[in-house]
């Protein structure tokens, strides 16, 4: 029975989740991670720190096996695939808000012709080779309220209509300047020193306006609030949104980021990053 929970929400819950979660943590002391727990709440196995990250899947399977062995015989569970977050990257919620699906990754290579401004000539070699991922993906979600989402809708459906997206909304995307999945490394909206996102209607065809998006961000983030552990990020983004003019609704949204992140100092060795924010109507 798989459960995926936010431990801070579990600790505040009033439906019994709090008591169960605190009991689990007392039995196997780990801040977060995986526990195998009997229906009565007894911890059978658990894992948080992996001995070897590259073999992490095997270590996790070993923990699950240990938990099942401690539990005893159990029938194979027949469950259908589900989507517990149907609005992630799709559709509009009842209150008019949307959830953008976000992804970020270290993306070295791509060719020196894509070298961004500010990268030293001596480090251009980091852009040699094919543009391809290095390491796992950061998966994230960002909610925009109805008003924030409306900032991407054109005031008029004529080619050339242009506007600036409010800075408050542009700042939501600051997190995409880092590919770190750990919350301590996630840039916050207030970390942005530049958050500039603009939109322009480039075509109107078949009752749909195609909106071109372009943006620029710069940020400085202190990991865990520690000013001796700073990361410096910069990125540009290009994208396209499609808007149904008569229906007054967005149909699709895609924003692709290209950036660099430096650890420790503003002239530290740059790591190229790529990120995506996307959404579509159902």
């Amino acid at each position, binding site marked *: 029975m798989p459960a995926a929970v936010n431990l801070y929400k579990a600790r505040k819950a009033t439906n019994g989740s709090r008591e169960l979660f605190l009991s689990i943590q007392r039995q196997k002391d780990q801040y977060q991670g995986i526990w195998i727990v009997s229906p009565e709440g007894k911890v059978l196995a658990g894992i948080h720190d992996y001995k070897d990250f590259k073999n992490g899947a095997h270590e996790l399977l070993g923990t699950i096996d240990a938990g099942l062995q401690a539990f005893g015989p159990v029938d194979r569970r027949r469950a259908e695939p589900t989507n517990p977050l149907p609005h992630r990257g799709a559709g509009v919620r009842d209150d008019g808000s949307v959830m953008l699906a976000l992804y970020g990754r270290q993306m070295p290579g791509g060719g020196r012709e894509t070298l961004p401004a500010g990268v030293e000539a001596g480090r251009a070699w980091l852009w040699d080779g094919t543009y391809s991922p290095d390491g796992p993906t950061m998966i994230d979600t960002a909610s925009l309220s109805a008003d924030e989402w409306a900032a991407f809708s054109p005031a008029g459906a004529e080619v050339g209509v242009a506007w600036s997206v409010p800075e408050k909304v542009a700042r939501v995307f600051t997190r995409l300047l880092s590919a770190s999945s750990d*919350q301590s490394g996630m840039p916050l909206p207030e970390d942005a020193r530049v958050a500039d996102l603009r939109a322009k209607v480039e075509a109107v065809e078949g009752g749909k306006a195609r909106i071109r998006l372009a943006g620029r961000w710069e940020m400085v983030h202190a990991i865990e609030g520690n000013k001796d552990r700073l990361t410096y990020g910069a990125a540009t983004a290009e994208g396209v949104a499609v808007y149904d003019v008569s229906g007054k609704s967005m149909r699709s949204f895609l924003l692709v980021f290209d950036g660099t992140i430096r650890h420790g100092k503003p002239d530290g060795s740059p790591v190229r990053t790529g990120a995506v924010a996307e959404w579509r109507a159902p």
Partner: protein
Amino acid sequence: MLKALLLAAWLVSLPTRDDLAARATAIKPTAKELTWLAIPWVLDLAEAQKVARAEKRPILVWATGDDPLERC
């Protein structure tokens, strides 16, 4: 006329939707890498315990400081 020429020149210099989609595909995880999202996760611990009791099976509790399915 000048405005139209400038707009046309600007459009020619921009990546197409296909270009952007290709870059996005290079960055995003593959469908195989996202298979774990299709596991029928329950997002509430008390609800998971209720189902586990009914089905007489253990719970796999995955807890993080974020919502695990929204940010990881």
